[in-house]
């Protein structure tokens, strides 16, 4: 199995405060992996560093993607290599229509003719978006915005999809809908690494998981083992 993403001794500092303290993490092609941990653990910092969206001056250690070192590349170039992220807090373009948001998602693609077909594919995955395709992104509900954010990342046809807290601020029923879509995306062959506060759903969805605490990975195992681990049960599953 091909190693798609690998972090080796990755550290990140904001100024002189180190918030990620040397973590190792990998994702193989075809896997779905989750990164869980409490507030401020450094999950978003890690995710955004992988995507090259944090100032590179704070990075130490190595990040490899698809056989290439990417830790000092600009974010737009990383996206063009097929590593796309659904950002924490959705970050859709509020004054662009749903359709324009999706077009921007396909910005790096060269195969123009196929784009419209894939956008239609997104409308199949999230029918609510099709009804609203002429509407400004900012007028969508939170759940619809999350669907749009996911669809926007997917039309880029990423080799690896990163999702940072897809359930953030959404009602349970919408969270389920979003996660059903994530499972479907996975089944269609996209490799996924996602961060999630809702550890129950995260460990039920992913195959492997990493548990992060104050900048360190304290556990790495299959989700099944994590679900049955007493420490995890107590700290993250509320049992």
């Amino acid at each position, binding site marked *: 199995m091909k190693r798609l993403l690998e972090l080796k001794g990755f550290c990140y500092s904001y100024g002189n405060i180190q918030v990620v303290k040397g973590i190792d993490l990998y994702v193989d092609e075809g896997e779905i992996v989750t990164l869980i941990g409490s507030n401020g653990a450094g999950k978003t910092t890690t995710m955004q560093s992988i995507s090259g969206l944090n100032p590179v001056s704070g990075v130490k250690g190595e990040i490899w993607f698809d056989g290439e070192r990417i830790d000092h590349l*600009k974010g737009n170039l990383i*996206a063009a290599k097929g590593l796309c992220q659904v950002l924490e807090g959705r970050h859709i*373009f509020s004054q662009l229509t749903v359709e324009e948001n999706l077009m*921007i998602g396909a910005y790096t693609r060269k195969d123009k003719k196929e784009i419209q077909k894939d956008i239609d594919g997104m409308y199949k995955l999230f029918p609510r978006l099709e009804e609203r395709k002429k509407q400004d992104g900012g007028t969508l509900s939170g759940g619809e915005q999350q669907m749009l954010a996911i669809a*926007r990342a997917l039309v880029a046809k990423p080799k690896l999809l990163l999702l940072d807290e897809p359930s953030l601020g959404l009602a349970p029923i919408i969270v389920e809908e979003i996660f059903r879509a994530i499972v479907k995306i996975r089944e269609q062959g996209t490799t996924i690494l996602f961060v999630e506060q809702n550890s129950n759903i995260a460990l039920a969805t992913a195959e492997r998981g990493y548990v992060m605490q104050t900048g360190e990975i304290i556990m790495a195992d299959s989700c099944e083992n994590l679900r049955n681990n007493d420490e995890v049960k107590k700290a993250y599953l509320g049992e």
Partner: protein
Amino acid sequence: MLFQVIVSGFVIGCVYGLIALGYSLIYKASGLMNFAQGDVLTLGCFLGYTFYTLLGLPYWLSLIITAAIAFFFGMGEERFIIRKLQNKNVLTVYVVLATISIQYILQNSIQAIWGPNMLSYPRVFPWNNVTIFGVNIQTESVFCIIMSFILMMLLQVFMNHTKFGTAMRASALDAKAAKACGINPSFATGVTWGIAAALAATAGILLGPIYGVFIMLGQTIGRKGFAAAIMGGYGNVIGAIVGGVLLGLIETMSAAYWSSTYKDMIAYGLLLIFLYVKPTGIFNEKALNR
């Protein structure tokens, strides 16, 4: 008489509109007000004069070269001054102050290169006037209006119906998300400044044959273009055009039918009232701090 007044109102109004467009684009992309905008018009006017009058190039070619030079000037201004400051995380007022510095440096440089005297373009068209509705209008005025509208339409199409234009709007809205989609937001911002400068310089070369070429040409127009941008709704592209034409008409009308000495007082008095009554501008752009 009335028709001629309206035409000259439109001429200056279109120029305000082109300048206002630049303000709006820059505001959207960088959250700033660029004081040097009007003086880029002056630069364009002098560059056009140099290519057209001194070097004897065709007018259309002078126009294209001028716009191209201004484009790179605007892009350079953003990359080497504005962005450098913004990367230091200084307050916005400091960056605006930098644009004031650029304005005066530009004004002085223009004077150093071309001298302090007023210059003039020779006629651009072989015929002096065109007759519309039985009224004689200076050909260059008609050309200025038509060109302005063409430019505004081109910009509108570029921003809304091309991939890169949409990417520019996306970067202006959310640079991080744009980057995550593979867009280089710094480049997009640079292009935005380039377009703003090219618009201003083009306004300068259009205005040159009508108003003459002098150092202070752009400063006043720059300020009024800013007023126009706010009247239209700061940051709103259509609003910039409407605001510009409206301000041009109001000003020209008050000069013609009331008092040319007090035309600025009238126009700006109206602006103050306007700010009070409708701070969001004609096109309801977000203007209130909430």
